[in-house]
């Protein structure tokens, strides 16, 4: 997790440690200003990063009445230490300025999805204006919410480290404000040294902070009887969310159990709650980072670790080779996948994506607990040579976008349906089948909506179309069009029982060699309509837009179906 060290550099940080006992051992603790103690503590935190969490990012932001980014997010902890030594004193403590600055920087760098840690190091005195701020924070509705960054727009832990004596009056006054800040953020703590202020107590304080918030994950990866000690980077966060009937709070187990394997293509980029690098630990439990290039120094201690086989490397190799992922269990009813992942082409590593807790979290894979060894099924769904796959699971109901249903919610829907009929009409007799299919589809919908005017309108359009037929057109086209518009007009007479009748192609004994070629396409079969289809349909006639003849006739000539562009330049990419 990226960490912001938010350092108070107000003038009050330059107070000496304890005003009451100033001079007894002045030589020894001459240096002990609060800011020095703060720097000392931050150093120990950074040392911890350098040793145990090499892949973490940290940044240093100072604030007083203004906020300064002294060191943007980096893994180079030494440079942060150097920046700490160059901190300049400011004026007053404005916590809100600091929090706004930290939030801004995190949003710019990591967006709103990355969990972050914010360590606010201050002197236990919230400074001028704290009462007004506290008051506004207490009332839930009326605080200056637009500006105030809490709760942070990203998941964050806010720890307030006070370099102060617990008994100081300043701390006592400010404590409720700190508490309110933490309450607003939801997660975090106030830390204050036990006993007097000294290097030792501050060190202990930061040790406590590290222990509670920055301990690295250490667990075991199991695959049947094979296993390897691992750490996860960044450390997995507990999942805490309000569901419909309960509040779920779960943490990742120390044992991660591989349950089986799936094709990478089959899991289809499932949404993940978090992602972690899986790094094998040495037998001593340390994370080993070998020097990147293979230099001449073969007999370094790190290289010994590199030569002890680790199951992680085998698993990674196997998954990469087979282009598969390993489904694993990370907690009670909580799953994830392990796979080989490469940031760039050269360096691939083992990655763990953790799903949201639950059994049914990836819709196209069904219930995860219902996945079992394919080899135990009567017929292996993967086929003899891995040519087929049982995924994705097919959905039961068809979606409206997958059905060719009639939607006339907006004008455009109706217009395009009419236009489609006209397009086919102009290509008669080649498109006879499609023409009648579309015609019947619109007619059916119009009848079931009680939208008789549409039929009349459509009939006029077709009649007009018939008269406008160019002389070069096939004689059958006119016959079919005439048949169609007459049939549409007669709907209330001859076709009063609409349920059983569709307009069907007029049979023509017109003998011409062209007809022979077109009718050789086969016998036209028209959908038979079941009466049940109309039941349950809502009649919306009175509210339906009155079909304006002009509207309907206004057709862009010859606009056939669209197809995807195949730009020759892009052909290779498709």
């Amino acid at each position, binding site marked *: *997790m990226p960490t912001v060290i938010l350092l108070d550099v107000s003038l009050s940080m330059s107070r000496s440690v304890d005003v009451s006992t100033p001079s007894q051992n002045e030589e020894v603790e001459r240096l002990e200003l609060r800011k020095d103690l703060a720097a000392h503590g931050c150093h120990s935190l950074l040392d911890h990063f350098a040793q145990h969490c090499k892949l973490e990012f940290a940044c240093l932001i100072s604030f007083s009445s203004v906020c300064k980014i002294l060191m943007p997010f980096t893994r180079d902890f030494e440079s942060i230490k150097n920046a700490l030594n160059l901190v300049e004193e400011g004026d007053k403590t404005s916590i809100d300025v600091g929090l706004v600055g930290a939030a801004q920087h995190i949003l*710019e760098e990591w967006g*709103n999805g990355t969990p972050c840690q914010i360590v606010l190091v201050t002197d236990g005195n919230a400074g001028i204006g704290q009462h007004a701020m506290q008051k506004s924070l207490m009332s839930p509705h009326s605080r200056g919410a637009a500006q105030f960054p809490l709760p942070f727009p*990203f998941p964050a832990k806010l720890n307030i480290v006070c370099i102060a004596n617990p008994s100081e009056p300043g701390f006592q006054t400010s404590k409720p404000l700190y508490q309110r800040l933490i309450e607003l953020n939801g997660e975090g703590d106030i830390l204050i040294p036990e006993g007097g202020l000294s290097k030792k107590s501050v060190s202990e304080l930061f040790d406590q902070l590290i222990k509670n918030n920055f301990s690295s994950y250490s667990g075991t990866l199991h695959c*049947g*009887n*094979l296993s390897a000690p691992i750490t996860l980077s960044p450390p997995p966060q507990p999942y805490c969310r309000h569901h419909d*009937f309960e509040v779920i709070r779960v943490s990742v187990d120390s044992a991660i*159990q591989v349950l*089986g*394997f799936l*094709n*990478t293509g089959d899991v*289809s*980029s499932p949404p993940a709650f978090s992602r972690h*690098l899986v*790094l*094998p630990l*040495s037998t001593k439990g340390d994370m080993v*980072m*070998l*020097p*990147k290039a293979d230099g001449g120094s073969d007999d370094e201690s790190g290289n010994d*670790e*590199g030569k*002890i*086989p680790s199951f992680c*490397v*085998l*698993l990674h190799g196997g*998954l990469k*080779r087979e282009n598969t*992922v*390993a489904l694993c269990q990370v907690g009670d009813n909580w799953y994830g996948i392990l796979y080989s992942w490469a*940031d760039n082409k050269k360096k691939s*590593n083992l990655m763990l994506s953790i799903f949201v807790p639950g059994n049914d979290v990836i*819709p*196209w894979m069904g219930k995860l*607990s*219902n*996945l*079992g*060894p394919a*080899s*135990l099924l009567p017929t292996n769904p993967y086929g003899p040579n891995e040519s087929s796959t*049982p995924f994705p*699971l*097919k*959905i039961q109901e068809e*979606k409206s976008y*997958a059905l060719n249903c009639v*939607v006339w919610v907006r004008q455009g*829907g109706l217009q*395009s349906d009419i236009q489609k009929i006209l397009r086919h009409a102009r290509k008669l007799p080649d498109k006879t089948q499609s023409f009648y299919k579309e015609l019947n589809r619109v007619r059916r919908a119009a009848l079931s909506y009680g939208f008789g005017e549409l039929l009349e309108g459509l009939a006029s359009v077709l009649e007009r179309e018939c008269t406008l037929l160019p002389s070069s057109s096939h004689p059958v086209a006119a016959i079919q069009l005439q048949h169609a518009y007459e049939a549409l007009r007669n709907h209330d007479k001859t076709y009063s029982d609409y349920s059983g009748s569709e307009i069907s192609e007029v049979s023509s004994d017109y003998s011409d060699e062209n007809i022979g070629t077109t009718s050789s396409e086969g016998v036209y079969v028209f959908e038979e309509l079941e009466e049940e289809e109309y039941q349950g349909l809502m009649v919306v006639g009175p509210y339906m837009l009155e079909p304006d003849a002009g509207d309907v006739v206004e057709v862009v000539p*010859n606009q056939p179906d*669209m197809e*995807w*562009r*195949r730009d020759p330049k892009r052909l290779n*990419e498709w």
Partner: protein
Amino acid sequence: MALGPAKNIGGNKLDLIKGIKAAIEALTKPSAVQHEKRTSLTENATKVLNKGRIILVTKLDSEEEIKNIKEKFHGTLLYMNKNAAATDNLMAINHCDLVILNLWPEGPPCPMPIKSWPDVSTIVSCEFTNIQCGTALAPKLCNLVLKHYDLASTTVTGIPMKEEQNASSSANYDVELFHPAAAHAAILKGIPSETAHLKTYREGTDYETVTLKWCTPRSNASMELQHCSSAYRITSVDVNSRPSSCLTNFLLNGRWVMLEMPRKSGSKVISHMLACHGGDIYIHTMYTSRSILEDPPSISEGCGGRVTDYRIPDFGELIKANKLAPFPAPTAESEESLTPLERSKEQLNRHTKYWPITLSSTSLFNLGPQIEPLAALMLEDNLTEDEVVECKQVILYLMNMEARGDPLPSPMAGQRGKGMKREDQYRAVWAELEQYLQLHLHTPAHEKVLECLMECHNKAATPEYKGDEKVDIDQALKELDDCNYVADRDKAEFGSGGGGKHATGDLSLPDSKRRRTVPPPLAPMGRSSGMNLLTLWENKVSSEESRRCLEFQGRLKSEDNVTKLYVNLQKDKDKDEVPRKK
């Protein structure tokens, strides 16, 4: 539920209370999930809340009427709650949102403004909306759906489409989609000014739509794992419009499309992905910001990274053998207590009982195809007779190899000098094989394979046989027969096949040993006590090999290496003399 037309209560007014009452009553009935949770006897059972929304579609003429309805609604709700609380099967309503849709005819606009009362009381909130009848009705209802179901709109812009006939020219189209609002959280939550430019109002709507740009899809995108934080189902707003159906068909055919979000600074970033899984189209949210996993170390830089002889191809086979597939849903009283996933875990356990991860730590698995049938079959739940035989054949084959002195394939060759001596290599293989078989004693059939190994190979080492180190030739022969039991499938055949001298009265032999027809006599063999099964075996093999070429008839009939020629000549002449000469 249909109530029929409302009762006219005079003054062209209708009685709406009956409908309101029916609606509230329906809300007090717990849903299936609510019922299950409420009766679950867990600590959360009492905390199940009942909230709902009632949409009243009507026509009201004055503010007075609205006020009236609100009051009556509240009163009815309180009354019904009291009733519901007194029963077991109904749930009191904790909060109800009343939405009044006032349908106003086309013409002059409605005098009453759109208004909302967030807290009519602690349990009722109310909202009043005017809808002009006609074309505005559908979009307006759409807006309400968006609000009530927490949906949001995305417009995919710049989709290049071409006409079927006019393939050379293409135009760009926009398609609007609806999906849960959470799909936008990743890009909209945060600094508002950064994302303000993404949001626009579409003509005739009163909700914002986020405009994202179409990216040319890559064909192999679906084979890679994209990092997504969420995936939600979508629908196009105009399902039937030409651009919409064009896009949805494209997606339904399995193509994945990336969507690009323009940044305020002018740069662009891929923020979403449209993909179809099993007939449902989803919008995936991608990570747009810097990754905390950037510049990760390579796996070769960590522990075990410098080891080069991992059995990765073998692990690939293990992966293939342990692929997961959806199982048919368990029947109500499933006889198996394990879920399919647990069974897969069991299977993995079994498959990895003995699994050296590097080539240098195993001799057995270096043997390659020779050992494969045995290694694979022993993992099975059950072994058939045939499979047991197949396993035994592998063992015999190994013995054969050893007898012939074939060199073993060794990964160590060339690494550290000459590696082990051949006998040591075989010893290692046998030891590993024994360990492997010991770990896979799932059924008696599996045990038979182990027994075979014990008998064939290191019989002396097994305590069972310690008593009779001096092998009787007869006994040895029988055991050899057992080893050589290859072709016979059926115990019952024994006897009928001409059991010979060994077939009778061998009651002292263990049951597991099965006999076969007697082999042809072996070459003469001493009864030396030092003879072990191996030498017996070798002798037998050599004798069998020698028997493969037919013995010269003359030599067989010879007496003191002299064979009389043309014996038949004499036979014909003098039949009596022949037997005398013999």
